[in-house]
């Protein structure tokens, strides 16, 4: 790997780890100076950029916390007393969830604890046996899988979903490509969804959910198939959308981001009570 490519990759990885721009510039400059002085190839001197970036990020205490004094807005999603049974099995028992503009809520729980069911109920794709959901504003939903046409390209998906949101073709493509780029993905023209890798399909899935800047975003384990870098990109985007005023619900079973979210809804208890 050439030195300038390695340095660029290092800068990208540091940003993914939430290292600030100043410190990123400093670390990259230090590494560049060392490589120039030593004449060593970067992989021999520092190893792969993602590993070196991870080590640097760990040494500076991980990702930056949310901005202090951040204010949240009005309630965007209010689910009250949601109860859902499948035959005799109670999946959700009297579950409440409130998410305000500028908040991220994580829904956690074991397999089968009703996480996806709760999101489908909030999206209006499933009906609860009891309870109500109020949504203020536009809703974006990213299912665990599916939600796309196998024979259409990403750009065509952007146009199709964008037309529903009232976007022109140009605007839909522009917004779609912008959000795809934020996930470190540049859709190749002419490649149909069925030919995308699992992780890239999920990026498309997520990008489609975001199209039209919805006020409420429901994400059902959208990072499945992501590599580590994409996973970090995803969480960075989630917090960026939150800071932009979106109310976000993320179903997750990966707990290492929970200290950064605003609300955690654990459905394990609800399942156990059943």
């Amino acid at each position, binding site marked *: 790997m050439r030195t300038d490519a390695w340095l660029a990759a290092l800068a990208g990885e540091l940003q993914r780890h939430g290292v600030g721009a100043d410190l990123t510039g400093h670390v990259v400059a230090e590494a560049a100076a060392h490589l120039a002085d030593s004449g060593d190839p970067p992989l021999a001197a520092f190893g792969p950029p993602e590993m070196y970036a991870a080590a640097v990020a760990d040494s500076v205490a991980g990702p930056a916390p949310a901005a202090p004094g951040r204010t949240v807005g009005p309630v965007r999603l209010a689910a009250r007393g949601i109860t859902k049974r499948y035959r005799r099995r109670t999946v959700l028992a009297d579950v409440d969830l409130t998410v305000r503009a500028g908040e991220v809520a994580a829904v956690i729980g074991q397999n089968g604890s009703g996480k996806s069911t709760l999101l489908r109920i909030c999206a*209006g*794709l499933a*009906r609860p046996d009891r309870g*109500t959901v109020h949504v*203020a504003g536009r809703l974006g939903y990213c299912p665990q899988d*599916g*939600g*796309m046409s196998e024979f259409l390209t990403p750009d065509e998906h952007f146009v199709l*979903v964008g037309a*529903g949101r009232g976007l022109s073709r140009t605007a839909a493509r522009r917004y779609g490509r912008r959000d795809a780029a934020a996930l470190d993905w540049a859709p190749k023209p002419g490649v149909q969804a069925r030919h995308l890798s699992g992780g890239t399909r999920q990026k498309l899935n997520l990008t489609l959910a975001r199209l039209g800047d919805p006020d409420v975003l429901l994400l059902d384990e959208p990072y499945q198939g992501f590599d580590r870098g994409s996973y970090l990109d995803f969480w960075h985007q989630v917090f960026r959308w939150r800071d932009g005023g979106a109310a976000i619900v993320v179903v997750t079973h990966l707990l290492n981001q929970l200290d950064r979210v605003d609300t955690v809804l654990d459905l394990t208890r609800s399942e156990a009570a059943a």
Partner: protein
Amino acid sequence: MTRTLVVAEMALREMARRRVVLIILLLLPLAFYLSRHGDHLGQSIRFVCLGLGWALSTAALFAGSAARTVEPRLRLSGYADRHLIAGRLAALWALGVLLSAPYFLLVRLDQHDVRYGAIAAIMALTVVVSASFGLALSAVLPRELEGTLVLLAVVGLQMMVDPAHTSARVLPFWFSRELATYAVDHTGTGYLDRGLLHGALTAVLLTVLVAVAARARRGRRTHLTFVPLR
């Protein structure tokens, strides 16, 4: 209107990319036509129309089934049932016209002393009815295999049941038999009227069934209230 056109465009793009399927769809009516070419003059015409109906219904069935995964997302994005149904129907009609045109030309060149206008009417009605029939099957039956079996049974019955029998009228392509008789045997307009009425009614009923099934599948979501912000 924009939403309907975009759905139609994307549905056409999807179908156009299934090239092997398109080739099979194009050749299926030809096989029907050639299988009865040596028989009575009208038989090959009746069979080619039935073949077109079968091919287009199958295309509609698979298009409807393939759309199931993306439709919840499209509804959440702002599409109504009418956009989705009208868009898919428009795409299937366009495909049907493209598939039928060569066969109309074939009949025009190969068959003489028949009423070509009536044959064009059979093909046009077949396109319209097939699109709604295939979409209705995909809306009512959740899996493609089930829909395909029903389609197979219907087309099989269409070939075997005596068209003069009252029960034959419940079959969706009964009109083609009536219109073909008018076109080939130069009968009175009774056959024409019955055929046109049956085809039009069948198309309307099947389209209504598509809409009702879509609504039923979506179900009532009384628990959810949306408050628009912009």
